[in-house]
């Protein structure tokens, strides 16, 4: 990929990535990552488009006043903020606990096991 040799030689240039790809700990990492981010992405997109469709086509419903001048539309809109922040925090805590340790383990394995080769390109 790169054509500028990095200042330090890349210690992972000789790694057999297909072998790593088949390792159980890598498969577990990929499984954990995908089984979190895919359903979560689908869920927030559905929830966002539900909101868009309601705001677009259900004007009467969105205009129902709940407290004073605060209506359903405003509350649902603010809930989009709440859900965005909640998903963010959830993902961060999931990644810190379930993804980072495995990723760091594999990284450590590969970067310490291989001797730096002469060339620096990947």
């Amino acid at each position, binding site marked *: 990929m790169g054509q500028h040799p990095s*200042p330090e030689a890349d210690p992972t240039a000789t790694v057999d990535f297909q072998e790593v790809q088949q390792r159980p700990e890598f498969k577990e990492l990929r499984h954990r990552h995908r089984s979190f*981010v895919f359903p979560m*992405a689908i869920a927030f997109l559905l929830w966002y488009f539900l909101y868009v469709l309601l*705001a677009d086509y259900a004007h009467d419903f969105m205009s129902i006043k709940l407290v004073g001048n605060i209506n359903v539309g405003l509350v649902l809109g603010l809930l989009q903020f709440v859900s965005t922040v909640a998903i*963010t925090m959830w993902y961060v805590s999931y990644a810190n606990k379930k993804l980072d340790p495995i*990723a760091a383990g*594999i990284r450590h394995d590969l970067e310490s096991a291989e001797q730096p080769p002469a060339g620096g390109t990947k």
Partner: protein
Amino acid sequence: MLPLTTVTQETTQVGEPWLNMTIFGLFVAITMVIVLRASRNNKTAADYYAAGRSFTGSQNGTAIAGDYLSAASFLGIVGAIAINGYDGFLYSIGFLVAWLVALLLVAELLRNTGKFTMADVLSFRLKQRPVRIAAATTTLAVCFFYLLAQMAGAGALVSLLLGIDDRLGQSIVITVVGALMILYVLVGGMKGTTWVQIIKACLLIAGAFVMTVWVLALYGFNLSALLGDAAATAGNPEILNPGLQYGVSETSKFDFISLALALVLGTAALPHVLMRFYTVPTAKEARRSVVWAIWLIGAFYLFTLVLGYGAGALIGPDAINAAPGGVNSAAPLLAFHLGGPLLLGVISAVAFATILAVVAGLTITAAASFAHDIYANVVRKGKVDADGEVKVARRTVVVIGVLSILGGIGAQGQNVAFLVALAFAVAASANLPTIIYSLFWKKFSTRGAVWSMYGGLAAAVVLIAFSPVVSGAETSMIPGADFAWFPLKNPGIVSIPLAFFLGWLGTVLDKTVEDPAKQAEMEVRSLTGVGAEKAVEH
């Protein structure tokens, strides 16, 4: 109504322009010193393009907010809420929710696999040449549309904030803004650009926060009372309900779905946003950047909700529409109403700083893409040293800067507000499908990538060219002509699914099998960060 009109004239004509300019000059002076200090370490390509990958997640997150919150989202959304009420707020939610795509699917994986540009990631395991050229083309297209919109906006802002209405005066100010931007990017590279964005984001968010608390205090911190007064001043209770802007016809309703799709899928594929993820040392810091950006951008859009209804209540839609600058004058008029000339001066300076920071970010992205993807990897086939590449990048900065000044001058008085939405639509159609496919779909092939990128780009641009924003309506760019056959103003609902489909079709029709070793390498690198580019040690 009478006192309000006097206020309007005062704010936009005499007295304050010199104060606005002085405060903006102060901003330029302070940021210039910081840029000069920060640029002393600009030696390698990684320094110039990626700030030596030395920013922390919180710094980068703030810079992302500074890059993302353009004048359109500050002045535009406050004005849209003041005049169209709820529908303006609806617009801002798409801009925020979109960050989840970046957080969950793109930021960390991209940081782990790429070096400087989006094309690094897309061409990682596919054929370098065709994929790089395609990715650079879409990058340059998005940057060009976005840049033109910002520079044209600068002209409008000048007449609004500095009281300069004649064409020559506006052209001079656009030239000054463009020249300053070139200077920042040439001298400061990514490091300087990042600091300009950080300072601007802090000023913008702090300014919006102060005004928000001020407005809320006037209503005893009772949101319901503020909303009630906004409806009373507008003389229209519908301002609190959805539908004023997007609900006028079945076409406009459908148009909003198309816009929402482009906003939510386009953000995570904007090349200038993607490039920011290379300025941090690790994927974990990239994740932290998005978290910071989400908090800051979310808070900012909550402020704009209060400011928009505050402007609606305290100034009123009629007075805002009558002021020079129309919708965009809502925030400045509110600032004047609250804090007089001084607050107006601060907010005006922040608005200029906003344009400066956003165009700087776009320019360095476009220059990096040209120098790194087209020149170094395609023209010279990788046989060029980093110094040669950075030299080309710097020259490209000057060329892009001059082009954007000319474009900004040429676009004066033109209705080019659609360009921002077009930039999002192009990003969502031409970039996002290929990003997602190449990160997550093993079989994805070169042909799929090329079809999806060119197909998405062409579909978005062609549909816009034959839509009512270009011809066939009173508000069109060319009001006299009518060659529109596409009914929507936003092409996303057609071009995005089409680009995903083309990516799939190109792949299944492609008989060549991409290198499985490269696929394995990309997958392992993207998830673990093995061998990812490290921060530069000085």
